[in-house]
């Protein structure tokens, strides 16, 4: 039965063949450049607007990151500022606070991966299982609203509920118990920031999975049901495989973004929990740059983040290929 259910669901489970087969009957990789140009020119033309915009508004100013090798100041600009080689990098690498920030960032990112990343998937499946269209719309509209709250507001709301003078603490006091202050306890830090993240962005994160769920061929469910596959089996053998390409893709992109766990949330709560646990790479760079006007240190940190992200994306992409997934891109 299991085999049967899987067998009727080839498309989501094995996503590569269709894409590969597209070139059927046309010049392949080995074909001459001219033939490939003739075949692919309209595809290339289609990429021009986006590539052009990225080239002008992303690549050109990104070249400005050479200031990582300078002692840059805005007045002299890239041309006039003195070159200092790898000085900025060495300074970062020899600062224990940099490594503390990197460590915290990695811990937070791991916790996000384990405790935040799956939540939108589960929530999306749950929401998708609500049958009434109207009900589904209402619920989906509600869960995605907190995304539009600023971090200041989210932190304030948490403070007013979980803080030492918050609802819970004051109720405990009123009942004669000791108050419970979660918002300044470094040991509770990871739990608090993860809860905040789940509250703010889990609903927002469902959107992409809801779109993916809608793209799953409904015939598969019907055939599976007819073959006697129960609810859970259908989820395991149709729903999850259907979501897998998107999940893998987002996971890879998340890894590339691993050193960007967010700025404002941690900036706002830095002193409440102490920089020992809450300093992340971005807040570290911000504090370095703010008081010293050192743009170059920020650029150096940005380059480090980019390189780390690039390496992780390449590794994750490779692993995805080994697991038979597309990943972000693949050699064909």
């Amino acid at each position: 039965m299991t085999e049967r259910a899987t067998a009727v669901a080839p498309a989501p489970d094995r996503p590569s063949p269709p894409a590969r087969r597209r070139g059927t009957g046309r010049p392949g990789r080995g074909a001459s450049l001219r033939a490939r140009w003739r075949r692919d020119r309209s595809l290339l033309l289609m990429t021009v607007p986006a590539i052009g915009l990225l080239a002008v508004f992303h690549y050109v100013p990104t070249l400005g990151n050479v200031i990582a090798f300078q002692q840059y100041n805005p007045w002299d600009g890239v041309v006039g500022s003195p070159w200092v080689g790898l000085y900025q990098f060495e300074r970062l690498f020899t600062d224990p606070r940099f490594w503390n920030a990197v460590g915290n960032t990695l811990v937070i990112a791991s916790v996000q991966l384990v405790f935040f990343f799956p939540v939108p998937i589960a929530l999306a499946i749950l929401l998708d299982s609500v049958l009434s269209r109207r009900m589904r719309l209402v619920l989906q509209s509600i869960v995605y609203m907190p995304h539009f709250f600023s971090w200041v507001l989210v932190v304030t709301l948490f403070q007013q509920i979980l803080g030492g003078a918050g609802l819970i603490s004051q109720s405990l006091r009123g009942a004669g118990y000791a108050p419970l202050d979660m918002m300044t306890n470094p040991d509770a830090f990871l739990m608090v920031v993860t809860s905040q993240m789940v509250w703010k962005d889990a609903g927002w994160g469902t959107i992409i999975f809801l779109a993916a769920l809608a793209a799953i061929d409904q015939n598969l469910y019907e055939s599976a049901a007819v073959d006697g596959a129960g609810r859970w089996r259908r989820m395991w053998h149709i729903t999850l495989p259907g979501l897998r390409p998107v999940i893998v893709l987002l996971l890879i992109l998340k890894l590339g973004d691993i050193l960007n766990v967010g700025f404002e949330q941690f900036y706002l709560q830095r002193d409440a929990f102490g920089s020992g646990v809450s300093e992340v790479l971005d807040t570290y760079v911000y504090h370095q740059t703010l008081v010293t006007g050192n743009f170059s240190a920020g650029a150096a940190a940005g380059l480090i983040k980019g390189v780390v992200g690039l390496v992780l994306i390449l590794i994750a992409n490779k692993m995805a290929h080994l697991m038979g997934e597309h990943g972000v891109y693949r050699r064909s």
Partner: protein
Amino acid sequence: MSTLFESRPVWAERPSLPARAAKNTVLAVVTVVILLPIYVVVLTSLSPASAVNAAGGLVVVPGGISFRAYADLFSGGVVTRAVLVSLGVTAVGTLVSLTATILAAYGLSRPGSLLHRPLLFAVLLTFLFAPGMIPLYLLVSDLGLIDSYASLILPTAVNAFNLVVMRAFFMNLPGEIADSARIDGAGEWTILTRLVLPMSKGVTAVVGLFYAVGYWNAFFNAILYINDNAKWPLQLILRQYVQQGQQISSNSLIGNAVQGTASAPNLAVQMAIVVVALVPVTIIYPLVQKHFTKGVIIGAVKG
């Protein structure tokens, strides 16, 4: 509750009572946990100053209703004008972004096509390496885009994440349809507009939403590139209400505070701002969700 089950497919079994109860409990808890703070925000925005002062913060227990915060916000026409600016930038920006993204996502959706890998890699790199604030400012300035609405759109028009996600959805479409169309002599433009897009309404709506929300929430580009206050977008106008006197650096050694004459920040107005910024978002979602329709693929295959 009958609406809950109105569209159960004929093949699906009716879930057991405990399963239904569990599901509904989870959904109810999620809803309450989200709606309660929203209720507090809305209530505070509708509270008179006396209630806000008595609460010493966000208002949980109603202490009267006042629309003063909203009246303050919309008096003078500044906010109204900014709403129009933001709507315009969001609409045009989303259109530009979606067009460029769809085209590129499709253009890069065929592994093995000419320059496929280098171009895709170039897109990916922009996801990893961000340009600095000042180089971007100098570029926008050199292009003569200071004080233009284009400066609020072009620098963020293409987002690598959105592009890659859209491309992944395109690649997961059954290839047979496109192949047969190609055999019938259809060009890539036709395949994209007649076949791929109709099958990709869901992801198009999602990516459109991501872009729209990005434009709607953006303010930092406007801080840098827009000097003319009449062209400020809503989020930047709203930020101004939340500022408390002259901001000094956290470092006491750097500066001394000036006692600004800014009117004291009013929590009710701040919360009214949250609500105002939330309204379009709640309106737009149903438009997006509409496209999460099931069974589109089958229809397309058959068509």
